């Protein structure tokens, strides 16, 4: 005799699958909270890719050489592509692109707070590629093992493409550091401004992170915010030293016992200000996204009209 499974049985079965390192696929039963949690994280990730096009897009017309301009264009194009992978993967959870955009515009959905900082010099393109993409990679490498199948596969694809982003950024910094005093200063200044916001990309301390515990239990997240942040610090120090840059943290020190670098405390007041909408560029970033959406409407209308016309023509030809 078969009977309907109870909610508790379904949940136990679901957790057993997760514990056995199996992926959850779109048509599987999943707790509503799992669905919402993955959706929140994926939509935030997708929005970050797309909003992240703005600070760099700002420099495409002002890149110092044709080669750097080609590279920057290719990178920004990749970010748009990564946004698409993630939106499509999020859509497998039964939400629409329109809903996600609407949530972004109304402020219900977030994106990485780092993109609320302005990119004011060419060296910022170096710092963003090296540090911001570097931090994103640390996070994304870990997320390749996330429990939601489409998200995990998206991460694998994205990580493959992302490595060039970090390397081109570091390359910009390296070349500046071999240049004039003014160029060296420009590179150091970009590091000074982007270091702490990059550290904030990993989110609040584990103890204070609202979604962390449940996300870890469901293996949506595989490593905690603090673990990932430590990894980022450990890899960045040698990279900075190699080209003569100084990380702006007086408390940064190798800890022999831990086998990791110790580092200073993040300015959490600034972090909270920026994620609640009061960073230097929050309003500008959102306004630009809304504007692009509105100004693109006639293109979408034209495409729909063309489709209708084509269908009418082929119906006529068939008649």
């Amino acid at each position, binding site marked *: 005799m078969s009977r309907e499974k109870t909610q508790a049985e379904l949940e136990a079965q679901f957790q057993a699958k997760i514990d056995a390192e*199996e992926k959850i*696929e779109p048509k599987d039963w999943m707790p509503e909270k799992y669905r919402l949690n993955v959706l929140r994280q994926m939509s935030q990730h997708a929005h970050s890719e797309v909003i992240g096009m703005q600070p760099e897009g700002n420099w495409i017309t002002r890149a110092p050489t044709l080669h750097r301009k080609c*590279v920057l264009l290719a990178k920004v194009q990749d970010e748009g592509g990564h946004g698409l992978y993630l939106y499509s993967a999020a859509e497998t959870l039964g939400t629409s692109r329109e809903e996600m955009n609407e949530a972004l515009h109304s402020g219900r959905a977030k994106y990485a707070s780092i993109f609320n900082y302005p990119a004011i010099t060419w060296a910022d393109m170096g710092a963003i590629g090296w540090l911001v993409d570097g931090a994103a990679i640390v996070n994304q490498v870990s997320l390749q093992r996330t429990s939601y199948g489409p998200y995990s*596969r998206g991460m694998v694809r994205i990580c493959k493409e992302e490595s*060039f982003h*970090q390397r081109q950024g*570091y*390359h910009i910094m390296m070349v500046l550091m071999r240049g004039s005093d003014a160029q060296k200063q420009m590179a150091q200044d970009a590091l000074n401004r982007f270091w702490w916001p990059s550290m904030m990309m990993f989110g609040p301390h584990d103890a204070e992170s609202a979604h962390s515990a449940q996300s870890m239990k469901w293996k949506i997240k595989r490593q905690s915010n603090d673990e990932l942040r430590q990894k980022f610090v450990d890899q960045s120090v040698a*990279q900075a030293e190699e080209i003569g840059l100084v990380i702006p943290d007086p408390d940064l020190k190798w800890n022999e016992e831990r086998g990791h670098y110790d580092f200073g405390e993040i300015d959490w007041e600034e972090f909270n200000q920026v994620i609640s909408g009061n960073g230097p560029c929050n309003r500008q970033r959102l306004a630009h996204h809304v504007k692009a959406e509105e100004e693109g409407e006639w293109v979408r209308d034209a495409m729909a009209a063309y489709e209708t016309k084509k269908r009418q023509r082929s119906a006529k030809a068939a008649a």
Partner: protein
Amino acid sequence: MSEHMKLFEVFLRSKRGLDHKHVGSLHAEDPQQALEYARDIYTRRSEGVSIWVVNSTDIVASQEDDCESFYDPQDDKPYRHATHYQLPEAVNNM
């Protein structure tokens, strides 16, 4: 001569977490039948945990002969590859 039934393309997910992969095609009256045939033909040795069947006529494919014009000019963008950037040995694992 009687007409063949509709053609379906078959995709298998061999294991949770992996993409569905094209394994072949078969003829069937309708999607449900195609799914059952696919089970009998393509998964006799537990090759899959999930099967997709798609009407072959619904597949839109690019032509390999058109590669040159279709993909142009992506081949002359070596800077899209990580290896394009020469970095010092000490940090080259980036």
